[in-house]
């Protein structure tokens, strides 16, 4: 399998996205709510959605890289 996509980005570098996802989820959720519990609940939902979206996008790009 062509691992060009993975070779371009070292896997370890993906860990740098975790603090960004956490911070962005918390800040975005806090701009949508005022009380702490809804903020945290919404932040978890947003974080999971963001990670899922990136995984799907990565899978699509990896497939395209493999087929090309």
């Amino acid at each position, binding site marked *: 399998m062509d691992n060009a996509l993975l070779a371009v980005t070292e896997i370890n570098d993906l860990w740098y996205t975790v*603090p960004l996802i956490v*911070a962005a989820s*918390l*800040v975005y959720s*806090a*701009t*949508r*709510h005022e009380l702490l519990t809804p903020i945290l609940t*919404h932040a978890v939902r947003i974080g999971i959605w963001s990670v899922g979206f990136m995984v799907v996008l990565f899978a699509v790009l990896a497939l395209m890289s493999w087929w090309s």
Partner: protein
Amino acid sequence: MVKSSEQEAVQELVDLKDPALAAFLTWLIPGLGHLYQGRRAKAALFFICIMATFVYGCYLGGSSEFGWGRVVYFSWRPGDKRLPFICQVGAGLPSMPALVQAYRMKNHRKVWFNGFMAPPIPASGQDETEPADPNDVNADQLTAHTLQRNLHRYFDLGTTYTMIAGLLNVLVIYDAWGGPVFSETAKKDDEESSEDEDKDETTDATKGNTRNEANNAAKSENPRANGA
């Protein structure tokens, strides 16, 4: 407009005071505007999230050897127009040293703190690693090429972190100015739950009416029970 129950509860608690001042304070230091408004929990949350992101970005994009915070700098020279600074300036006061350092470098004054948030010096036309003016007071500083080569991918990572911190603060500024923007999902959840409650009440009322009608029918069929 139908408001969610959370929105109604919160609007009684949140006092935006002077929204313009709150927005300015939030730009100055993330969360300060919310502290001014008495929204302490959110002030702490915003301050910690945004400042941690910004500071970590400055840490990634620097070193003790080349100076810290090298990814946050202001430059508008031909060949080095630092567009990310447009996003980084959203973080407010933490990004202002970049303007001070750029001013000092432009006026041929020695930059402070080992080049903290200082722009790279212009490179000579022949060699991108050599300064354009070796006699300049800041000739010991790095060129853009040397900086990015030495920091490798951490230059881009640090830039990304600090840009995102600045952009997140734009959302926070709006929150300080206008209060929270409640999502349609919360309103729909509340509408659905209130509709369910209405349905239950209607069903109970219908059942109650049915029972009453049955009782009335039973009484009318049995006149002796009614004392006739």
